[in-house]
């Protein structure tokens, strides 16, 4: 196992370098003046251009620029935007919000998805089964911004006034429940369907029959023997999904006006803040790579038949 982890971690290095270089190149190698429109209506002051070019190493060849940037990253320096705002600080403010919302979304999709999947998997083709199948299909076909706007409108003060749908700049867990639900809704539908088909597949298996023949109570037959096996694919799906949830959600954050990573990266792209975009994307690549490694390791823990050598 130790050797496998080491090998995987070493594999991360070329993947990390490849993806980040690509992003860096895409952001800085565009044939356009990076200072266009940065100083209002007037062209920028040559002194300012000289200073910033020096700071961003814009006069060096691209590869040299990239490695200089990487060197700064390694010591924790994400650089500053054209206005001199620290990118590191911006990320530090937005990241906890995205993290909170991602965890809420994960909990919601896991709990509701798994419960719905188990109930329908055990009782195929009943009313509940049809209800879940139709509603998940509904969620899967709806774009997230529609789900988001509809829920925000109807649950909020302009609709049935059931809850306060506005989100403050430093939101609490409570405020993020609705956005988290919207963010997790699509995956929730997938989790429900994945769990359902996994339960249906396993409930007729020999080891379930053995557990029944042993006279184990129904709760243990389902809750221990059946569920433990059926949840293996579901948990790996949830792990990969957490990786993408932590990458922020441009649409959901936009609908609810949340100051998360998604919003930050969106503004960065809009305002052509190269330092901001490369900084965040590099971080996201790292998070995603580590999450997928974690999922692979988790898989081996969940299924003892899988051994990594």
């Amino acid at each position, binding site marked *: 196992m130790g050797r496998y982890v080491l090998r995987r971690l070493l594999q991360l290095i070329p993947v990390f370098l490849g993806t980040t270089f690509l992003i860096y190149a895409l952001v800085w190698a565009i044939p356009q003046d990076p200072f266009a429109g940065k100083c209002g209506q007037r062209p920028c002051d040559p002194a300012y251009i000289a200073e910033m070019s020096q700071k961003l190493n814009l006069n060096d060849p691209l590869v040299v620029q990239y490695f200089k940037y990487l060197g700064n990253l390694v010591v924790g320096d994400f650089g500053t935007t054209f206005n001199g705002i620290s990118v590191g600080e911006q990320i530090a403010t937005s990241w906890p919000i995205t993290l909170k919302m991602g965890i809420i979304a994960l909990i919601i999709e896991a709990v509701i998805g798994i419960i719905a999947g188990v109930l329908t998997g055990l009782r195929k083709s009943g009313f509940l089964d049809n209800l879940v199948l139709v509603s998940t299909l509904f969620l899967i076909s709806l774009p997230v911004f529609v789900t988001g706007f509809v829920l925000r409108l109807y649950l909020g003060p302009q609709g049935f006034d059931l809850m306060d749908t506005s989100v403050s700049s430093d939101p609490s867990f409570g405020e993020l429940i609705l956005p988290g639900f919207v963010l997790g809704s699509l995956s929730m539908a997938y989790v429900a369907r994945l769990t359902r088909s996994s339960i249906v597949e396993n409930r007729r298996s020999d080891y379930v029959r*053995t557990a029944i023949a042993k*006279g184990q109570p129904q709760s243990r037959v389902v809750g221990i023997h059946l569920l*433990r096996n059926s949840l293996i694919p579901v948990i790996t799906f949830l792990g990969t999904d957490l990786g993408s949830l932590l990458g922020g959600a441009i649409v959901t954050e936009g609908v609810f006006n949340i100051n998360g990573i998604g919003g930050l990266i969106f503004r960065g792209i809009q305002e052509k803040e190269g330092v901001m975009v490369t900084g965040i994307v590099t971080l996201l690549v790292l998070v995603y790579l580590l999450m997928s490694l974690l999922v692979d390791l988790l898989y081996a823990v969940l299924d003892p038949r899988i051994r990594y050598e």
Partner: protein
Amino acid sequence: MEFRTRDGVAKVLNGVSYHVSAGETLAVLGESGSGKSVTAQTIMGILDTPPGFITNGTIKFRGEDLLTQSADARRQVRGEGIAMIFQDALSALNPVFTVGFQIEEQLKVRRGMSKADARKRAVELLDQVKIPNAKGRVSDYPHQFSGGMRQRAMIAMSLALDPELLIADEPTTALDVTVQAQIMDLLAEIQKERDMGMILITHDLGVVADVADRISVMYAGRIVEHADVYELFRAPGHPYTESLLESLPRVDLRGQELKTIKGLPPSLTNIPPGCPFNPRCPRVFDRCVTEVPAVHNLGMGRTSRCHIAEEVVARG
């Protein structure tokens, strides 16, 4: 006992009746699809409804009819009164739990044993079924065991609650021949030690001859012959049993073509009228096609469902 399927109602079991006493081994012999395993699963109460429906009959255990008992009372009988082992131990054991866990689970949940006591007992049980280094292997997963060891582990698990009756559903079919013999010896030994009743479901005549006291031969969901093991091998009382015995390879008939039973067993949704064996029977005559044979009593507890049972047994 019938299965209601889209292709119609399959009368899986019909007029099956047998009994087993403590310390006795009854072999249930038959081809694939003859209803051997279904009988066992009906006794255990582990058939799914639907498609399985028990339309009538009784299953008496310790004098009580299991079919009239509550679901919970029946569950209590499973494992404690009647235990079952299955053909393929690799798929019958849960792949994600250790062998120890699966044995201890019975002791903890059903007997309320503490974790430490259950572990100790599990090691004892594995030791009893002759698993070498039981203490070290108790925390292994089923896939880390060899085929024979897995079957031994399943036997240990079935013995956890000291059942009075053990149903072994083709326990050696998935194993190598040498391992088969070891497992059968182990089963016979354990049965003797515990004075346990055993129902051995098999299609292997050799296994039957070795360990069984009595035999029920099944065909198309019915018991066609029932006899003491020596009597049956000496003189079969049903043409089907007769054909089965003739189809055994024999050393003294080397070089001759191996006899087989012509045709296939009938589909259970479409059992032929009269005697279900009539399309394949070498002794068929007109009555067989129209009339279902009654149970003929041949004395000494022997029965046969054949119109000419007396004649068949006499010729043997």
